């Protein structure tokens, strides 16, 4: 997927201002920023719910304007916060919408709907014949996800998909999304204003502000090396606990020393420093053994290491990160 440049002029400033991005196929990318930063506008220009004023967007080798908008959208999975399920259609028919638009034959649609309901953890025999309003918010969003996945899109757009859910449900659905993404490797762009969600789910984060991309990098880079004060504030430069919850264990890992494995408490490589800290405090140990997904030790983590990693990020201009209320300098050009 290859985005080049698009401008969306509006009063009083462009909603999306000369953005160029190149997103690798199969990446899960978060568009992060405060409301009004242009992240949703950017997302909706990809499936042409909004038309860019200038610039081009490619998906694979197809410019989005080379296709008619409905044909384009049928190739792109689309999930929105309010689920957008059709209230007069049963769950089965909601999920079957895109395959039906694509004129799949009936047998194939039936199979696909069953498969998808299982994939998102809703047994078809219990759910297929129900109506959206009979489901909880979390279940509805699972159906929304299933509908978006229905025609096996290689690209998915998600507009604050979990924003309206309670913390527990949101966590579960985030895990589901991560699992589905690991399994099928779609290219996923999702809009969020929740930095934790972005860091925990995304391969790359696009930080946006006032229509411009401020930083486009891996979560680790964004958290440990924010491009400016704005990003630093966003990743909680002044709040140690917040930062710890965003920095992965991998960022503070030290080489494995002999004789420690098997005696010290373990922590997963994929965990965050906040988990590590609570494990350290909880166990009273001064070191943790870091293990990979198969349980093999790969390094150790000490309290000192956590402290080092939690130090405020280094910034190019060494700005005062402890002053979140400082008005941002205007970025006009």
């Amino acid at each position, binding site marked *: 997927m290859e985005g080049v440049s698009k401008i969306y002029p509006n009063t009083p400033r462009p909603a999306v201002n000369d953005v160029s991005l190149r997103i690798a196929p199969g990446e899960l990318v978060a568009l992060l920023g405060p409301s009004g930063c242009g992240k949703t506008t950017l997302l909706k220009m990809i*499936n042409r*719910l909004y038309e860019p004023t200038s610039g081009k967007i490619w998906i694979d080798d197809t410019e989005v304007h080379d296709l008619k*908008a*409905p*044909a*384009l*959208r*049928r*190739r792109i999975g*689309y999930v*929105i916060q*309010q*689920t*957008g*399920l*059709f*209230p*007069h*259609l*049963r769950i089965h028919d909601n999920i079957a*919408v*895109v395959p039906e*638009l694509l004129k799949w034959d009936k047998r194939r649609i039936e199979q696909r709907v069953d498969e998808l309901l299982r994939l998102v953890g809703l047994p078809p025999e219990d759910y297929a014949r*129900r*109506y*959206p*309003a*009979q489901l909880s918010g979390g279940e509805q969003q699972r159906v929304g996800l299933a*509908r978006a996945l229905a025609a096996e899109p290689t690209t998915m757009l998600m507009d604050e998909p979990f924003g309206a859910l309670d913390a527990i449900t949101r966590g579960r659905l985030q895990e589901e999304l991560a699992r589905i993404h690991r399994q099928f490797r779609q290219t996923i762009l999702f809009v969020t204003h929740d930095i934790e969600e972005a860091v925990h789910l995304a391969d790359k984060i696009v930080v946006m502000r006032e229509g411009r991309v401020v930083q486009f990098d891996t979560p680790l880079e964004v958290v440990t090396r924010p491009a400016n004060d704005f990003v630093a504030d966003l990743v909680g430069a002044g709040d140690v606990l917040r930062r710890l919850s965003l920095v992965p264990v991998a960022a503070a890992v030290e080489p494995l020393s002999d004789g420690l494995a098997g005696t010290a408490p373990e922590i997963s490589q994929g965990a965050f420093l906040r988990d590590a800290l609570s494990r350290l405090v909880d166990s009273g140990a001064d070191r943790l053994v870091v293990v990979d997904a198969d349980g093999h030790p790969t390094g150790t983590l000490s309290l000192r290491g956590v402290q080092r990693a939690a130090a405020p990020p280094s910034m190019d201009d060494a700005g005062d990160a402890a002053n979140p209320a400082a008005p941002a300098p205007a970025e006009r050009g």
Partner: protein
Amino acid sequence: MEGVDLSYLTENWREVWSLTIDHIVLSLLALAIALPIALVLGVIAARVDWLTAPVLTFVGFLYTIPSLAFLAFLIPSQGLGQRPAIIVLVTYSQVFLVRNIAAGLRGVDPTILEAASGVGMTRWQQLRKVWFPLALPVIIAGIRTALLTIISIAAVAAWINAGGLGDLLFRGIGRSYPAMILAGVIAIVALAIVTDLLLRFLERLTPLARAQRATGR
């Protein structure tokens, strides 16, 4: 029972039945002409913000014209019979149809419409598969009110020889024949009640109404 003389109804039920059929045909003809007009006006009123108020005000104004005056007004240009009657019926029904079509369409959650567009429906598919079905219960309620109004005003239109059950009323009055008037009244009321029930039933058959029943709302 004194004053309730059903003799005309029982003795001339064939005539009453055939006038009822005429009444139904006249009413449905008027509805069939009124509905496409109202759909165009209603969709315009729902989609073009600045036209909403003018369109609704205009159809509301049409309804304020007294029906007898309207019929009399049409006689010089349209003569007598069904033609002027249908013009009057179509005009009066607009207010109910347009108002409910516009309200029904406007009442559909915009995020659902955006989702319909976002999954790749063409404009026509959006209207046919999502927008219209979701507005349908409100639209049918409008059709019900419109049709009841048409049925009652069609009775008055017998005054200009449009036929139908109003015939019994005007002839009965002219001949001071209460049993004939009563036959007309009973037939018109029965027709109105049946129409009302039928359309209420139709409302319950819409997909949205089914979904709402299943949800227990």
